């Protein structure tokens, strides 16, 4: 049982690490700010999401698990807000009116 849980953790954490790799590569290689923003949101949402998923299999108790999910949701919300705000400032024609 514990072996199966550990295996799931390893798989999910590896998937998360892959998305961080992808996000960084996108941030470094994509030509313009808006597509870099696109790459960043992948790392944010999926990278951290898979890491949290993997750690859920190791969580001790319900409250600990809920806190992990709360961290992910907060990051999602913060990420979405900031992405919107940055997209507004990054437009070549200035902020949207």
């Amino acid at each position, binding site marked *: 049982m514990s072996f199966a849980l550990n295996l799931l953790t390893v798989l999910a954490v590896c998937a998360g690490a892959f998305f961080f790799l992808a996000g960084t590569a996108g941030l470094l290689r994509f030509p313009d700010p808006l597509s870099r923003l696109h790459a960043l949101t992948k790392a944010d949402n999926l990278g951290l999401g898979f890491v949290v998923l993997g750690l859920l299999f190791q969580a001790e108790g319900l409250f600990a698990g809920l806190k992990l999910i709360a961290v992910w949701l*907060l990051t999602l*919300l913060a990420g*979405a807000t900031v992405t919107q705000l940055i997209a507004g400032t990054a437009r070549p024609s200035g902020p949207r009116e």
Partner: protein
Amino acid sequence: MAFDIGLAILVLGVAVWTIAGRDAFAAVVGFVAYGLLLALVWVRLAAPDVALTEAALGSGLTGGLLLAASTRLRRPETTAPGEESAAPLRFAAAIVCALVTAGLVAIVLLLPEPPPTLAPQAAANMAATGLGNPVTAVLMAYRAIDTLLETVVLLLALLGVWSLAPDRFWGGLPGQRHHADPEGVLTFAAQLLVPVGVLVGIHIFWVGSIAPGGEFQGATILAAMWILAAMAGLVDAPAVSRRWLRSMLVAGPVVFLAIGLIGFAIAGAFLAYPDSLAKLLIVLIEVPVTLSIAATLALLVAGPPARMPQQ
């Protein structure tokens, strides 16, 4: 082990960027990253209480403050070529700093063996306070006078910031008025984040007596959430001359001092708690202190009064 060395190198790299970066704004971003990485280091050093404080105050609130300042100071801050320090000065400074570093390296490598520690004393003291978190026990009992003075230092800093206001705005409202955009993403995010943040802040404060957390960490989150609400235009700063605001600011230190003085009567010394009442008295101190610190931190970030209330 390899992880620790890598993390230490990463911290150094970010610090080099903060110091050596050309642009002030980029340097501030580097500083926020520096604080974040230091929070990870504190976890590695088995100091989660400090990690919480570093993440909230060292990186978060300081970062927000300096980011706002660097965008306002933008143009005059860009250094003209002639303004750089002269090469001989830079060279001399580099030598002095290398010597300081070398001295500290020697100290680190020659730290006494076995390491001195006050942990057993703190553990003995902790039993008497009824608290489960050794760091909170040290802050509130073993070194309570430091904590009392610290709340006073925060108030003094706030007085200093307020006294920078131009005469005509004295007693007015700090910072700019932000207007809410009911359709805006910022309003939406603030409406969602602020309640969650307040809940997390109270949680961190409350668990401080038994687990890592405490009044400074909780208060910092509360302050950050208030500033977020103000930036989204959901709330406006109160005029600094308001009586309720001033009572809130001094409530913490006053209650702390009063309970400290009562210590003479019931336990024979300043800031001494009788064993049976220790935990109750500490909680009685912590609640107003948390509120005062939160208000002080928020107003420190908001800055000096800059406008009068509209009639």
